[in-house]
């Protein structure tokens, strides 16, 4: 019972916080609002920890039913929460990292007059994200799924006076919605097939079903996931989403929301296991996204854009893991990625804050002396994402790469290229921002403690995060994998069957090449005083990459422009030239008929009297005839 209450409290606390903050947003000061919001999400974190401690993995998980939601005919969809290993993991990530980012935001947003609104939306986001991960059925997850989309929309467009930001916000929402079409289709399909949307029931029933419908269902789910997790072809919204305040980018567009797609696929892993075709598609889309995004990251000059493409690329890795069927590796990478990418974004935020809003790395440089804590923590984040040995990213990424090697060396090679590109652009970023000489003209200052504490905590986590799922190779016993394995009856985990020697060799090769990349990056960027960035001078291919493979332009030409054209012309031609005239025709026909018939009304009384007489006679005759 107490556990049920705790479970309900986890999403309820941020929701209450959001409601209070939204209704009192004009009366609260930024600090009070931030404090309240942080307290709420921290409370949720404490509840999650208590739940985690009281959780008996052997039982597999529990469902906490709050109330009947949609219940009609044979459709019973309760508003219920599911507490199991998977949702607990996600809850801890969401509330834990969420708390840190809320705390950080107090410092980051302290001079924004709409800070209470910001915190209200951040809390609302936390609520939605918690509904997403805690839902006991697809539809509850979908509540969160759309909820985070809305909050993402609000927060990307937080500074609403800039039209580009609003455009970015709309783009994010609409692209997510396209994914949602897939998600809803999957849900209606699964509902029709299984008569329920409860995860536990579906996964139980589905195991062993061999049904071509599963391919469709999983493909639809995957479409939903590509929208939310910014995979090809729906990834272009994520870099634009950097328009929002940096804590938002850290929380929503790096650590939590964008991993919802991965979460969803892990949740329904049983179904995906039944559809190897879908798994292959996920694998290749993940690989393509990882490489494509990493390549774009090489040439970006906006500190947040680099991180954004890095996020897309890392999400690609996670999808590769999912495609390979190694769900625990994906979740492991979700966790470590949440640590170091949140750290990197917050560090970037600290840099931006230090420079008074500057985001262009060409106008940075030499900052390591000015903002030491930020530099050290950012450095830790960089080596973590690059996968230097014993960092958290090292373990999670290598696990995925090992699985990839097990499938095919070619895949391994592709992922390795991606990893090297990651290293290169991350160190390029590091060197350009913190090394060399300062190229801007602001006065860098270190951020307040509320901002640096989260950085330090996340730095520590980024270092030690690997311990969560320490492989046997390093004396661990893959704790996370075993924990997650209890989540649902269905969640299966592929076993790594490589010999230890192979694993050592793979790690060695990776590490060695990563070091080489760092060296190259150091040579090229560490001492740069100026930076040429003129895209026009680049050779064609390089320019193409620097222009993000022209995806935005492509989509604009393929979809946005034709859609606008269609909208205008449907109205001006189809509606006004065809449909309205047809209706008018009906009216005019009636009127002209009236014009003919009205001639009968001569106004001559005698004529009418005669007509009456004639009518009377006719009526009588007809009556007589019919007798």
């Amino acid at each position, binding site marked *: 019972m107490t556990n049920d209450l705790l479970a309900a409290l986890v999403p309820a606390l941020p929701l209450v916080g959001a409601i209070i903050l939204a209704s009192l947003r004009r009366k609260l000061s930024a600090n009070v609002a931030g404090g309240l919001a942080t307290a709420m999400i921290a409370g949720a974190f404490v509840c999650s920890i208590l739940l985690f401690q009281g959780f008996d993995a052997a039982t597999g998980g529990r469902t906490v039913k709050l109330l009947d939601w949609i219940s009609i005919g044979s459709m019973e969809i309760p508003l219920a929460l599911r507490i199991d290993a998977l949702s607990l993991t996600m809850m801890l990530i969401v509330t834990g990292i969420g708390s840190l980012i809320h705390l950080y935001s107090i410092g980051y947003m302290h001079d924004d007059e709409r800070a209470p609104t910001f915190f209200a939306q951040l809390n609302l986001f936390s609520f939605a994200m918690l509904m997403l991960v805690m839902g006991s059925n697809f539809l509850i997850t979908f509540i969160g799924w759309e909820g985070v989309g809305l909050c993402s929309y609000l927060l990307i467009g937080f500074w609403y006076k800039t039209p580009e930001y609003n455009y970015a916000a709309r783009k994010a929402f609409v692209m997510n919605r396209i994914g949602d079409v897939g998600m809803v289709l999957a849900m209606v399909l699964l509902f029709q097939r299984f008569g329920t949307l409860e995860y536990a029931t579906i996964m139980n029933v589905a195991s062993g079903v061999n049904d071509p419908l599963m391919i469709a269902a999983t493909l639809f789910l995957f479409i939903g996931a590509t929208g939310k997790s910014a995979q090809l072809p729906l990834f272009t919204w994520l870099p634009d989403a950097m328009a929002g305040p940096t804590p938002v980018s850290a929380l929503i567009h790096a650590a939590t929301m964008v991993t919802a797609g991965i979460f969803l696929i892990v949740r329904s892993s049983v179904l995906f296991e039944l559809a190897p075709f879908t798994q292959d598609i996920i694998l290749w889309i993940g690989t393509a996204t990882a490489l494509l995004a990493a390549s774009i990251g090489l040439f970006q000059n906006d500190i947040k854009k680099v991180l954004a493409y890095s996020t897309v690329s890392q999400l690609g890795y996670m999808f590769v893991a999912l495609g390979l069927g190694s769900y625990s590796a994906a979740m492991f990478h979700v966790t470590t990625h949440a640590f170091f990418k949140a750290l990197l974004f917050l560090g970037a935020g600290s840099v931006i804050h230090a420079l008074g809003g500057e985001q262009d790395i060409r106008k940075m440089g030499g900052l390591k002396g000015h903002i030491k804590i930020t530099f050290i923590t950012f450095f830790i984040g960089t080596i973590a994402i690059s996968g230097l040995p014993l960092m958290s990213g090292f373990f999670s990424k290598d696990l995925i790469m090992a699985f990839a090697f097990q499938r095919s060396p070619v895949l391994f090679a592709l992922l390795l290229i991606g990893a090297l590109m990651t290293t290169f652009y991350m160190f390029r970023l590091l060197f350009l921002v913190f090394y060399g000489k300062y190229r801007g003209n602001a006065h860098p200052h270190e951020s307040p403690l509320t901002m640096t504490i989260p950085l330090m905590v996340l730095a520590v986590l980024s270092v030690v995060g690997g311990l969560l799922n320490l492989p046997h190779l390093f004396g661990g016993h893959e704790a996370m994998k075993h924990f997650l394995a209890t989540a649902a009856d269905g969640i299966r985990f592929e076993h790594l069957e490589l010999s230890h020697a192979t694993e050592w060799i793979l790690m060695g090769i990776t590490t060695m090449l990563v070091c080489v990349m760092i060296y190259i990056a150091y040579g090229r960027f560490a001492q740069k005083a100026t930076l040429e960035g003129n895209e026009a001078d680049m050779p064609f291919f390089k320019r193409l990459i620097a222009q993000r493979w022209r995806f935005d332009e492509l989509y604009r030409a393929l979809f946005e422009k034709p859609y606008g054209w269609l909208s205008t012309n449907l109205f001006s031609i189809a509606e006004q030239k065809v449909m309205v005239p047809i209706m008018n025709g009906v009216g005019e026909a009636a009127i002209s008929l009236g014009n003919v018939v009205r001639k009968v009304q*001569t*106004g*001559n*009384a*005698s004529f009418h009297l*005669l007509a009456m007489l004639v009518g009377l006679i006719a009526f009588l005759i007809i009556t007589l005839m019919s007798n």
Partner: protein
Amino acid sequence: MEEGIITAIRVVPLDHYVLLSFLLFSIGAAGVVFRRNTIIILMCIEMMFNSVNLLLAAFSAHHSDPRAQVFVFFIMLVAAAEVTVGLSILVMMKRNVDSVDVNQLNRLKG
């Protein structure tokens, strides 16, 4: 006389009354269309009223039911009211268009 009248009800067949009232009605209807003088049209209408009254009275007598005669009485009431209104309209018409020609009333032309 009394006896004679009582037998009259039996002697004169109902058909006769019906035909007579039909005839009067038809003459009235023809007159309504035939004439242009509004006052004569009104009179023809009165005549048609009366043919119907006669019919009702005849049926009443043959049915031995006094209620139909009550209806005749009501028709007379209505006719009286109708005539007063009709004649005042006629007066108005005369006053406004200085004519009682029914063909003057053609404002209702569609």
